[in-house]
């Protein structure tokens, strides 16, 4: 059988193909990653961190990272664990084994969402077309992450650099999110009349 021929299709592949990319708010599709949702009570949280190799933040709305791995706080008993370039089945099995003695939940959600990045000085402004949060560095510093909404879509938003945000979006919503941001940044294709309101 043609086992090796089934390739993963990214939900943003089609929609990202034709986008013009103004540098003041450029969009990019992020590579596929293994993604697990870990949920559990305190004793198991430490074990999960050890098994994953990254601290699971105890502070609300923060992510921690080590190399290609990130742990996002999503709720007081919920973390999204992300490992770029890793096979999710392997990661799942390895962690499940080390958590076997704990009462907790580990679920593979690698295909649930795809991720994109927005980069540039107008990132905050473009994201605020639909995201109601205060995205200034004071209110949303580097290292912050949160579930929120963008227009009519739920997203997980995180700030990795001063002018860089990552968005993790459920597959069926991701083209909408891309198109909404693409529409919002259209004004920067027109440099003469573009303005910097913030």
């Amino acid at each position, binding site marked *: 059988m043609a086992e090796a021929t089934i*390739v993963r299709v990214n939900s943003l592949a089609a929609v990202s193909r034709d986008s013009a990319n103004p540098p003041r708010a450029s969009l990019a599709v992020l590579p596929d990653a293994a993604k697990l949702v870990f949920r559990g009570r305190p004793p198991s949280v430490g074990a999960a961190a050890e098994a994953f190799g990254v601290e699971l933040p105890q502070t609300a709305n923060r992510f921690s990272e080590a190399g290609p791995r990130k742990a996002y706080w999503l709720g007081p008993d919920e973390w999204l664990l992300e490992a770029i370039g890793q096979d999710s089945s392997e990661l799942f099995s390895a962690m499940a084994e080390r958590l076997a003695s704990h009462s907790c*939940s580990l679920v593979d959600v690698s295909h649930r969402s795809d991720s994109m990045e927005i980069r540039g000085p107008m990132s905050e402004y473009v994201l605020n077309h639909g995201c109601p949060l205060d995205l200034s560095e004071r209110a949303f510093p580097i290292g912050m992450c949160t579930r929120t909404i963008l227009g009519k879509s739920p997203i997980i938003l995180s700030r990795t650099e001063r002018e860089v945000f990552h968005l993790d979006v459920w597959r069926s919503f991701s083209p909408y999110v891309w198109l909404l941001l693409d529409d*919002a940044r259209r004004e920067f294709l027109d440099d003469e009349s573009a303005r910097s309101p913030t």
Partner: protein
Amino acid sequence: MRYRLPAGGRIDRDKPMSFHFDGKKYSGFAGDTLASALIANGVHLVGRSFKYHRPRGIMSAGADEPNALVGVGNEESRYTPNLRATQVELYDGLVAESQNRWPSLSLDFSGANDLFSRFLPAGFYYKTFMWPASAWKKLYEPMIRRAAGLGRAPDAADADRYTQVYGHCDVLVVGAGPAGLAAALAAARSGVRVFVCDEQDQMGGSLLSEREATIDGQAAADWLEQTIQELKSRTNVVLLPRTTAFGWYPHNFLGLCERVTDHLGPAITKQPRERMWQVRAREVVLATGAIERPMVFPGNDRPGIMMAEAARTYANRYGALPGTRAVVFTACDGAYRAALELKSAGIEITAIADVRSNPNGRWIERARAAGIDVRPSTVVTGTYGRLHISHVDVARISGGSAGHPETFACDLLLMLAGFTPSVHLFSQSRGKLVYDEDLKAYLPGESVERERSVGGCRGVFDLSTSLADGFAGGLSAAKAAGGTVAAEHKFSVFAQSLGRDGFVGAPPSGGGSRRTRAWVDFQNDVTAKDIELATREGFRSIEHVKRYTTTGMATDQGKTSNMNALGIVSQTLALPVSKVGLTTFRPPYTPTTFGAFAGQSRGELFDPVRKTSIHEWARENGAVFEDVSLWKRAHYFPRPGEDIHAAVRRECKATRESVGIFDASTLGKIEVVGKDAAEFMNRMYTNAWTKLEPGRLRYGVMLREDGFIMDDGVVGRMSPDRFHVTTTTGGATRVLALMEDYLQTEWSDLDVWLTSTTEQWAVIAVQGPNARKVLEPLVQGIDISQQAMPHMSVQEGRICGVPTRLFRVSFTGELGFEVNVPMGYGRGVWEAICAAGREFGITPYGTETMHVLRAEKGYIIVGQETDGTVTPDDVGLAWAIGKTKKDFVGKRSLARPAMSRSDRKQLVGLLTVDPKIVLEEGAQVVADPSEPVPMTMIGHVTSSYWSAALDRSIALALVQGGRARIGSRLSVPMPSGPVTVEVVQPIFYDPEGKRLDG
């Protein structure tokens, strides 16, 4: 140009611009509004009034304009009706037209309404169009529709783009007149994030037409320039000109509409036409200023009658003279300033009629010194001129009534009764207004939100006090927002005070108010006598007077009329104004486009269009889609020449006879994990889960606490502590929310956690007698033989090299599998299965065929057979209730007496006696069709299809006491006559379930 001053003002005489108004070409300059350009061309007649079609002219110079409403735009797709000419910035090539007139502005046939005006009093519509009822549809409604409404809605789709952006700041300053700018300076210097918005193209408010005053030793214009430069240079300040704060919503959330490109004309730009800012501000400074109040006197609506300050603005800011010879009618000092400055600009001031008996002070002295004829205790009692004012009657008041009039010739009548503070936003913030008897104005009382009003909008009118008030407000806002408060600043201002006098209501006017018409609400054509009539007819609440007379209900929401209407009610009822009350201010402050409210939510961005990873394959293979919540689902796959019926028959037949393939990826999925997972499932579902072995599936039913079915789905036990739960497509979010609710708020002691996996898994249903043969060669590490994998079991392994949770399950009654694979592999696996199934004629089917196949088996669909009032027993699912369970959500409610009555509606099958008739879903079921209408309805059809397998129609229905009626005949009344049906068991095909094993 006779009406354009040779120099001065803020227009750019080096940039002439041509424009068209009602087809005629004119010219103006950059910096003009449409109104100022028309005035500079001597054009005052710009519209017809709403009800009487009276000729009307430009009355104001701002957002308060009631008369000069125009339609702007050359192309239908960019046409905007009802714009105030006073706010339309001129651009080269602008095309505008007047409204509410036919065939032309100067000859309008509906002007006849004016002749019959005494037959069109307040409440005319309520009183007249009462009967006969039959006249409504044919006569009254078309007539009213033709006559009613302002402007003309464009009939082409809006070609422009609109955006919406959320903004956050520490201090939002609304209004950039002197008080607002001072507040902005103070806040900006305190280092906090400041937004400043102003509805005009230039910031400055009253300073834009100031000639005389100086601030800190500079001419007002120079101070303004310097202040704006300072604000612009600060990185913590965002300046938003052309931006109207139109609404205040709870917790310091304000809606701002920025007009981005209208002033550019149809220039090619990537900018949106309008940008709606939704701003959350820690602190708000309202510096919205004040609006001029007209005088109420007979014939006060002719073209050429204008607010005094507006005339001053036209002369000073735009270099446009609104006339050559003016009479002034006023009750306050402001009009004297206007008269003096207009006189120096070249307008002859014939006389100032002042209601006050003894006007005095510096402005009056200056007017007299300039040789102006100042007449105390004097009113205007009438005006003349068909399309433009030509004469006015002026008379002295004595003993409370006007004496014999004296007539003056003029082409301009200036009026000013005083200033009405713009408290709209404060009122919208739910702050209480307090009436100031002295100022005759409502002023902001105690704040409810984190807000303060400064300057004119709280009755502080003089430039020096206004600047100081603004600066103090800015400092206090910055402090409250946590800023480092900047140094105090004391403004040194030279400007003459305008005092605090004013008049509210209608001054005496000779001839008696019943015969003459003095306009209060110009846009809705409401006169003083209309308001008096309303009070005579018993309307005492201002809210009732408003609705009965429609005063204040036009698009200007009574900006110029509300206070005078109040004054007249107060005069008529002999009550103080403060006792009459005030109508409620509501958003928007000025009309705001639907485009701005819709923002980007148009076309493909109207809603997220959720697609599965198999969607594109379906599209490429000719699927017709249907919307199921936000999802697009393949409805059916027509082949060339097939309609839905033919396609569905073929899809059904192929699935029953060989094998069909169906995309079920939209099913909701929840992973329930933890050592208490089975206990949790026991509590959430009616079924018992404890004994379900890992590797087995069970159909689960979930109730709401009220005992009615909420959702259903197949649940797989993957391991002792892990369940793979499926829900309906539309119910996924609801079910997860309900589960989390119980878990977080009632059973937080349970060790169980939920994770949505709806989008993790693509679900490919492979159904039909050949299903196993198709899948067998594709799976690895899974034995899918009948012995190893019986009906309602699940195995994990791989298919086509990718991980799968393979369900042996059937929603068709045939041997069936549901292949769960990670979503990104969905299309690849689907295509591999299609390739493997080709030799069996594998047929993709859509939701319609799925519905038919399950209905043949009597499987319910939640939301189709259920409607939120249906118990498990009602639809024959009593078997799914765990009898030994002590409790589960909804169990106690099932024990209520009403839930077990024998006449509850129960699910039955219906077979039409004529097998060719397919019943309508939703049709009512009756026992006796000979009963007179309305018949006793005992049930309704929930599902109805043509069954290819049975070669006849089938239907499911909920019928009172339905199970006891099996074998009897009922009737379904239809427009073409009653359809006789036989009540049968709700299962039509393979009742023994032999086909499940192929």
